[in-house]
């Protein structure tokens, strides 16, 4: 069941490469993602899935798989309408790349072997590079270049980190040395500490680059800013979650080795730094999509802080992972609509969005409120849970710092979003209109986030609880 889940999008991608018609490719995209979602649903419904040493499904990967699949489905649905609009450019590159991207993300989520995990994450980088370059202009090439270079280097560092851990096993006298997760976890207490620590740092920096923790985030505003909205959504919601999962795997290892506190401290520092840098960058940000990119940096920081604090905050962070992904989906897709309508993503042109494009504008505003942690949206619940966790452990200074940074973020983001959405209607030069196909996915995401803020399904809660138990020191 696990291998078909990876292969399904891959097969669809292959078919899309050979398929001669535009519509057929769009259909393949939707069918592929729907099939993926369906199979994910079936998998998640099973209490236990038999895995191999290479692939497996624990609570953490269940959670990330669910998020990724859901997000991808919405984006695929959206892509149909989007590509219809960009008919001239075609979808010959876009659709296969998207499907390969999905496949690689799935592989990364399911991988139980650090090497395989690394391979899959690297593949996501490569598969997403053409997606970022979709618009084929100077800016998008620059963004792609920076994305590719920084992420490749980051990923290389992560590989080195993995090797360090392996070498730590070798030095520690573990035999046979195996980068399989369960084997490493079992052998963790024997690993050579300096190598393990260095390995964790390299993995944190490497996958942190991919995830976009500051100050490793520099590719993010450029890539998110220039990529099509749906790619931005997939990167900000899906890819970052996958990279975060990779970091969590390393954290599991550190926990098993009894060095959890050290790892958590590093995560906490990175998290606070990310929030700070994001807050600084969001003040008076005139570019809407770059704004969202910085918001992504901020939320990666929040995730890191949550996991860094542990206990209840971990639960909150994992819940926040879900909320953040879905909200980012809604935000990026609605901003994509605005960008298409206004033919700009700069604040001096995007004005009066609610009056001009009522549905997309409203969704953008709602997404903004959601992502900044306003009740009754889901991120509030997770954010508040993280805060309770932080304060609950007596880290009052961290909690207050977070609150101050959240306030700065709100001010910065609010100034831009409100200027863009409020005001009298503008005459648009483009023929774009809010059509059902491009409005439904962001609407779905925002509604989902709203529901998660008012009612958390019991299975999800227990899943997150199990997942956060995996990140706790068990001994």
């Amino acid at each position: 069941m696990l291998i078909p889940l990876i292969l399904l999008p891959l097969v669809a991608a292959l078919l899309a490469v050979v398929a001669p018609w535009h519509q057929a490719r769009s259909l393949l995209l939707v069918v592929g993602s729907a099939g993926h979602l369906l199979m994910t649903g079936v998998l998640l419904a099973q209490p236990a899935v038999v895995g191999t040493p290479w692939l497996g499904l624990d609570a953490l990967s269940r959670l990330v798989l669910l998020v990724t699949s859901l997000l991808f489905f919405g984006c695929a649905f959206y892509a149909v309408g989007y590509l219809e609009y960009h008919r001239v450019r075609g979808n010959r590159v876009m659709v296969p790349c998207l499907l390969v991207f999905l496949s690689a993300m799935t592989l990364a989520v399911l991988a139980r072997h650090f090497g395989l995990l690394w391979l899959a994450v690297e593949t996501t980088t490569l598969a997403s590079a053409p997606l970022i370059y979709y618009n084929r202009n100077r800016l998008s090439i620059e963004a792609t270049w920076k994305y590719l270079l920084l992420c490749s280097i980051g990923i290389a560092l992560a590989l080195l980190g993995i090797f360090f851990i392996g070498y730590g096993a070798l030095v520690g006298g573990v035999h046979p040395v195996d980068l399989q997760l369960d084997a490493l976890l079992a052998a963790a207490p024997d690993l050579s500490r300096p190598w393990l620590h260095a390995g964790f740092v390299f993995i944190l920096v490497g996958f942190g680059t991919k995830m976009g923790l500051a100050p490793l985030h520099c590719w993010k505003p450029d890539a998110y800013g220039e990529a099509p909205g749906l790619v931005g959504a997939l990167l900000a919601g899906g890819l970052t979650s996958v990279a975060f999962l990779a970091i969590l795997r390393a954290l599991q290892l550190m926990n098993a080795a009894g060095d959890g506190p050290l790892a958590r401290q590093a995560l906490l520092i990175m998290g606070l730094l990310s929030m700070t840098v994001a807050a600084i960058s969001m003040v008076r940000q005139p570019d809407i999509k770059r704004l969202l990119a910085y918001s992504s940096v901020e939320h990666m920081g929040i995730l890191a802080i949550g996991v860094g604090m542990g206990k209840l905050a971990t639960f909150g962070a994992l819940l926040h992972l879900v909320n953040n992904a879905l909200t980012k989906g809604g935000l990026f897709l609605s901003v994509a609509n605005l960008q298409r309508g206004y033919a700009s993503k700069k604040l001096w042109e995007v004005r009066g969005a609610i009056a001009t494009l009522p549905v997309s504008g409203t969704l953008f505003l709602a997404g903004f409120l959601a992502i900044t942690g306003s009740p009754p949206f889901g991120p509030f619940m997770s954010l508040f849970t993280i805060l309770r966790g932080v304060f609950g452990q007596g880290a009052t200074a961290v909690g207050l710092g977070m609150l101050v940074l959240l306030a700065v973020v709100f001010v910065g983001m609010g100034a831009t979003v409100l200027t863009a959405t409020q005001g009298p209607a503008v005459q648009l030069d483009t023929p774009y209109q809010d059509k059902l196909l491009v409005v439904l996915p962001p609407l779905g995401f925002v509604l989902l986030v709203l529901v998660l803020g008012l009612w958390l399904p019991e299975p999800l809660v227990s899943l997150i609880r199990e997942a956060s138990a995996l990140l706790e020191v068990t001994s």
Partner: protein
Amino acid sequence: MVGLLVFGLVLIATSGVPGLAWRRGDSGERLFCGQVLAGVLGCLVPLAATAVSGGLRLELPWAVPAGWLVLELDALSATFIAPLLLVVACGALYGLRYWPQAEHAANGRKLRLFYGLISGAMLVLLLARNALLFLTAWEIMALSGYFLITTEDDKSDVRQAGFIYLIATHIGTLSLFGLFALLGQHCGSSDFPLTASLPAAGSGLLFGLALLGFGMKAGLMPLHIWLPGAHAAAPSHASALLSGVMIKTGIYGLVRFTSFFAHIPAWWGWTLLALGAVSGVLGVALAIAQHDIKRLLAYHSVENIGIIAMGLGLALLGRSAGQPALVVLGLSGCLLHVANHGLFKSLLFLSAGSVIHSVGSRDIDHGGGLLKRQRWTGLFFLGGAIAISGLPPFNGFISEWLIYLGGFGVLETPSSPLAFAMLSVPALALIGGLALACFVKVFGVVFLGEPRTDAAARAHESPPSMLWPMALLLLACGWIGLFPLSLRALLERAVSDWTGAPAVATLSADLAPLGLVAAIGWVLVVGVLLLGAWLHRKSATAPREVGTWGCGYLFPAPRMQYTASSFGDSLVRLFQFALRCERHGDRVEGLFPDKQEFSSHTPDLVLDRGLHPLFSAIAAFLGRLRRRLQNGIVACYLFYVVLTLTGLLVLVRL
């Protein structure tokens, strides 16, 4: 009973939803109004039941982390809910003609949707006994408030006001996040702790966060920055709701929060007392300097919140020093003034709206002589003005009297540690005097004299559906002023809800003189009416065709009347040290002076003089920093990677 309450609540909260279907025609607004009124009636029954017997409680599971749907209606909540229901109903009715869908096709539906939502959210907030439920309702209220304020978002000043409001309210909300997260740690669950169950030790941070979060909403002085702009920007009946009711949720929060603690540190009370006095005096001083009637009323909200905070501060001091009489007087003054302010401020906003509706301007100096053209509106405004100035026989006097008594009361025990609390008395006196001056100015300039503009000369009376809500509110003001003892039971129960101790018999004695106050109020009303009737009959045949005596000048013109600026000028000069009023225009000099212009403008002390420049500087600095950090050079980004790597390696000490 609980079912009825929830049913009414849901009806109110969703009242704007059905109307979304009608873009044209008035079915939507009628449906909205009907639903609000039905919901209010539904809620009134359980409310009345609470006033008679004990409270109601509802507990249901709620599938969010640490969430639990706990609603409880006790006397403390009831004192906030009662004026809320009245104002909501009056505003809904008023809106039918004030903001008809036919004239406001673009934003009428939005206004009604959020009007219903904010009312429902406030009800939930006042009933909630769980932190998550409270915060959710709080933010729904805050956001709905934002959309009410930006009803006319095609105007840039409205957007500006809305933005400032949103920032302020969100900062408040964030500090409440911190507050409730910390509180949850203190009491072990996110349900509200029982009254007087927490020790106060180490809760200074809690109080600070509560003061920031709730004070921001209430509009205590340095935190009032959002209030004047927001109330001026919203449609009048929405302003009535925001100013009359919404800002009181901040007070409610403070009252509820302080009720959790068994012992109150004295500095909490002193802080509130001092902030209250500053808000009161500076609020009213700023109000006098305004020309925009709604901004003026908004500053009066700051003033009244100050009075309320002084009451709460006295009550807190009473708690910390163990003086039950002070607790009763302070808290019942505070609670009663909350209700009173809700009533008369709504009344004033509605009647100001009626003036704006017919004159078409918010500028006080564009009115004049309206009492002849809008006799009922003028009468209602006058009633509200007397009430808000705290003059007998209206309700404002009753609550201020209670707080005064608290202030005097601290002197009764010799060498009491609270002796300095008696400074609230002269502060209240100054506030009262200034408020009186301010409302003489507004009423005189807008309603009396000759019309200053053509629009004022052509003004017409508002339709009955706008007048009845005002009449209802004035009646309520009069009721509290003339039958204050009818509220005694509710107030006493609210006090015992707050302190956690059952009401003691001696406490009633403190409120007993209210009967005599009311009696004197009655004599006053009857005496004035009798003498007035006599004078009126005697003067029935008098000639009314002459002009006002011009002191020898033969050609007086309406423009020569005293204006709002000139009226406020002498008082504004007295407070120049704090107001920093800006004057534009030259002195008139010489025997045959040229044409001169004069205008004055009083920017907000905190917002325009302090925060605006400060935040601009910070934003500019952050912008420079951002450009330095994200400079577009890949090599530099790689350098960050190396730095991070090195830093973390040092951190884990390999």
